């Protein structure tokens, strides 16, 4: 069957080549049946790649270890769901998934535009198929997911235990969806420039794709942060790692694009800026994909065959060069139709927002690629750490939150200054109230962190400003339609989805930043060794190591991740102030997995694999108590058990020694390393993210056609009335 899978890849390549030729020929000669044929090639491409994915998935689920990919990342003992997910844990598999997702989104985008902007769509088809061909070519030439070994090994290596978490199932597909979705606006952007058509219809189409890309990418980033925080052993959610940054960059340019697109829609301005943003978003997405696979940056993530680096560099170079050429050669067509009416207008605020976002992008690009830059300039590779990133991104983030509170209060085109001044009273009052509350020492120690303080006040300002908008909008609607307040609110949002959905997104971001500011500035940490019975004070809590725990074999492994042995602790968390109320009982542990190294003996191989920390956390509205343990498995007594077992026991009896080791650990527990964290308001980061998603969905939800027709009819009637007036 591997042969069939490979045949699918070759067929996909042929389909791409045909589709590119057909769409280009069709649009240039005006013979649209060829452009249609090109569009259908994308559908066919999606179908063929889907078949290839199916073949590989069947191989995974059927434990067909003849497939190298399956043998490298799965095993008979890997739980079923993780077997299915293992497809994207290898280089070849992830390329296939990338190509597959790209084909699906491309098909959807072309299906949705099959009756409109057909000339732009034809060029976009060629570009999307070009991407598809690139990724399939990588697989065919460098990283074949259908490579086989004959004879097939009896058992596979198994999925890396670090990846056996539910969030790991969702994070890569979500992130890949985000990355691949970014190429759709890129294709339509280039298509528009090639077709010499950057107009209102193009805006309508591309906004939907850009929004979808932004949403999925944002969700992917959030899930990655959530995974990092709740599963990994360091207790943080963002480390300014090269790969995290690579995903954030296209999201930032996407955010800028969504805002400045509205300016182009209303005033015909910023056309060059907008196409540049859309092209940059797609290029940054490809660069992000490349970063994970190359060895160019020393990140935890950066591995993979160096052979892939060269084709990617060529692709990125072509994208950048092509983009610059297209924009420069079409600059006449991209001239602005109007100028800014007034500095005091929402358009100006959006422009400012764009500048800040682009500033952020430059900071992050500079910091992320600094090792390469410094090597090129000074011959010595050097890197900057999180403190450097924080120094520049935090003030910019403050300005963004502030702007999101100013923007709603300013009208489009030109605002009346007197009205604006009056409308700022309530939000500013709220901000000042927050400031006073915080300065009076309400959460202790808050005055020592001015940046966090500033963020809280800015967020309060933004939330109050948006709340005021909802209030006034509801009031206006009631004045017009005499509805009860809740109905008026719903009707208001339904009829102005873009505006109010956008407001909700900004509230979500403000809440998110409150969580980030609180949890990064006011965290209490303790790293220390504890023996049973000892306790430690973290923040306002007392954590006591009650007794050790040990569980054996996958059947009893509560984390269901297939570890042979799990050693941990029972921790009692109580408030340190009287009365010492019981807060939680936490059971962090460390899982020891079987290893694939031949050098280890029958016992050693059962627990010699990479250990994985299973943290235990108590989630609360105001704070999280997070605990991790690193039990000492290498005390002389325990080590002796392993060595003796290795020497005397045959492999099938090795588990007996492990059971003995567990019992010994429970009887004479050595002191263990504990990592204890109390982080305030972490939950609100995820809540904020959810609010953002909710707001975004409201904003992009198409208005029911009945509403649209009613609105259009009324507006038309009024316009005709205006004609009569004039």
């Amino acid at each position, binding site marked *: 069957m591997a042969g069939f899978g490979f045949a699918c890849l070759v067929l996909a390549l042929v389909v791409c080549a045909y589709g590119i030729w057909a769409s280009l020929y069709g649009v240039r000669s005006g013979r649209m049946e060829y452009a249609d044929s090109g569009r259908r090639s994308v559908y066919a491409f999606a179908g063929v790649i889907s078949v290839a994915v199916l073949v590989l998935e069947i191989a995974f689920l059927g434990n067909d270890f003849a497939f190298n990919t399956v043998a490298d990342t799965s095993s008979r003992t890997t739980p079923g769901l993780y077997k299915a997910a293992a497809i994207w844990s290898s280089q070849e598999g992830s390329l296939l998934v990338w190509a597959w997702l790209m084909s699906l989104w491309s098909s959807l985008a072309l299906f949705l535009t099959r009756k409109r902007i057909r000339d732009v769509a034809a060029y976009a088809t060629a570009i999307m198929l070009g991407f598809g061909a690139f990724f399939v070519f990588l697989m065919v030439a460098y990283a074949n997911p259908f490579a086989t070994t004959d004879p097939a090994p009896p058992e596979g290596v198994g999925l890396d235990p670090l990846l056996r978490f539910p969030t790991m199932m969702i994070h890569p597909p979500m992130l890949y969806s985000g990355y691949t979705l970014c190429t759709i606006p890129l294709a339509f952007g280039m298509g528009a420039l090639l077709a010499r058509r950057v107009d209102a219809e193009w805006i*309508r189409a591309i906004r939907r794709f850009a929004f979808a890309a932004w949403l999925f990418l944002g969700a992917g980033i959030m899930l990655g942060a959530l995974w990092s925080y709740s599963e990994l052993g360091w207790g943080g959610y963002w480390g300014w790692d090269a790969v995290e940054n690579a995903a954030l960059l296209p999201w930032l340019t996407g955010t800028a694009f969504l805002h400045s697109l509205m300016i182009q829609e209303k005033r015909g301005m910023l056309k060059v800026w907008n196409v540049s943003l859309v092209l940059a978003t797609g290029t940054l997405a490809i660069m992000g994909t490349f970063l994970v696979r190359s060895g160019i940056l020393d990140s935890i993530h950066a591995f993979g065959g160096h052979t892939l680096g060269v084709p990617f560099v060529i692709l990125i170079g072509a994208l950048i060069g092509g983009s610059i050429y297209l924009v420069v050669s079409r600059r006449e067509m991209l001239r602005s139709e109007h100028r800014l009416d007034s500095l005091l207008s929402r358009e100006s605020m959006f422009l400012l927002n764009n500048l800040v976002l682009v500033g952020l992008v430059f900071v992050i690009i500079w910091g992320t690629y600094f090792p390469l830059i410094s090597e090129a300039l000074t011959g010595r590779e050097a890197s900057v750490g999180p403190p450097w990133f924080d120094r520049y991104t935090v003030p910019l983030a403050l300005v963004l939150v502030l702007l999101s509170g100013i923007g709603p209060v300013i009208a489009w085109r030109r605002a009346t200054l007197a009205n604006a001044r009056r409308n700022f009273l309530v939000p500013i009052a709220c901000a000042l109230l927050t400031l006073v509350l915080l300065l009076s020492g309400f959460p202790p120690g808050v005055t020592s962190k001015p940046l966090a303080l500033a963020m809280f006040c800015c967020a309060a300002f933004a939330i109050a400003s948006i709340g005021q908008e909802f209030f006034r909008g509801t009031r206006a609607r009631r004045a017009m339609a005499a509805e009860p307040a809740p109905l008026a609110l719903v009707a208001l949002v339904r009829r102005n989805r873009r505006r109010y959905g956008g407001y909700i997104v900004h509230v979500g971001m403000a809440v998110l930043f409150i969580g980030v500011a609180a949890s990064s500035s006011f965290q209490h940490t303790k790293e220390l060794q504890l023996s049973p019975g000892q306790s430690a004070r973290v923040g306002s809590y007392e954590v006591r190591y009650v007794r050790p725990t040990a569980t054996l074999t996958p059947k009893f492994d509560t984390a269901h991740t297939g570890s042979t042995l799990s050693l941990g602790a029972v921790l009692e968390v109580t408030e340190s102030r009287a009365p010492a109320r019981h807060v939680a009982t936490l059971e962090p542990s460390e899982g020891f997995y079987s290893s694939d190294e031949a050098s280890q003996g029958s016992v050693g191989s059962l627990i010699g694999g990479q250990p994985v920390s299973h943290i235990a956390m108590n989630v609360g509205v105001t704070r999280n108590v997070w605990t991790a343990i690193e039990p000492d498995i290498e005390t002389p007594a325990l080590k002796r058990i392993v060595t003796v077992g290795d020497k005397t026991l045959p492999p099938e009896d090795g588990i007996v020694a492990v059971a003995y080791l567990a019992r010994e650990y429970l009887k004479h527990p050595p002191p263990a390393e504990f990592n204890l964290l109390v982080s305030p308001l972490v939950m609100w980061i995820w809540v904020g993210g959810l609010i953002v998603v909710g707001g975004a969905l409201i904003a992009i939800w198409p208005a029911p056609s009945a509403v649209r027709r009613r609105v259009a009819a009324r507006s038309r009637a009024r316009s005709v009335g205006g004609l009569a007036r004039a």
Partner: protein
Amino acid sequence: MGLLIALLTLVLVGLVLAIVSAPLRRARASSSSEPARDLRAPAGAGASVTPAGAPAALQAARVREELEAAREAKYREIRDAELDYRTGKLSAEDYRAIDADLRTEAIEILNRLERLKPRDA
């Protein structure tokens, strides 16, 4: 096994060819039976055009799409301006001025759309 693979591949290739060539086959069939009817013209661009006029049909479609989208955007702007006024961001005077501007622009678009109306009966 090899036979099965070859068979499956052949089936897949057949499917792909069928999907991809459908528009071409349709165009050839219709142009041989009804030379006057232009299948390539998108809905609403109207009129009977010869194959040589296909780019023109495409161009007409473009202009219509562009104006319709511009009209929708302008209606939205008018509504936004009204909402801005009702939520207290604009004084009555400013609102009237902006509203007048927007309506003038909207009427311009409507006029251009009128002139574009297809002439086929």
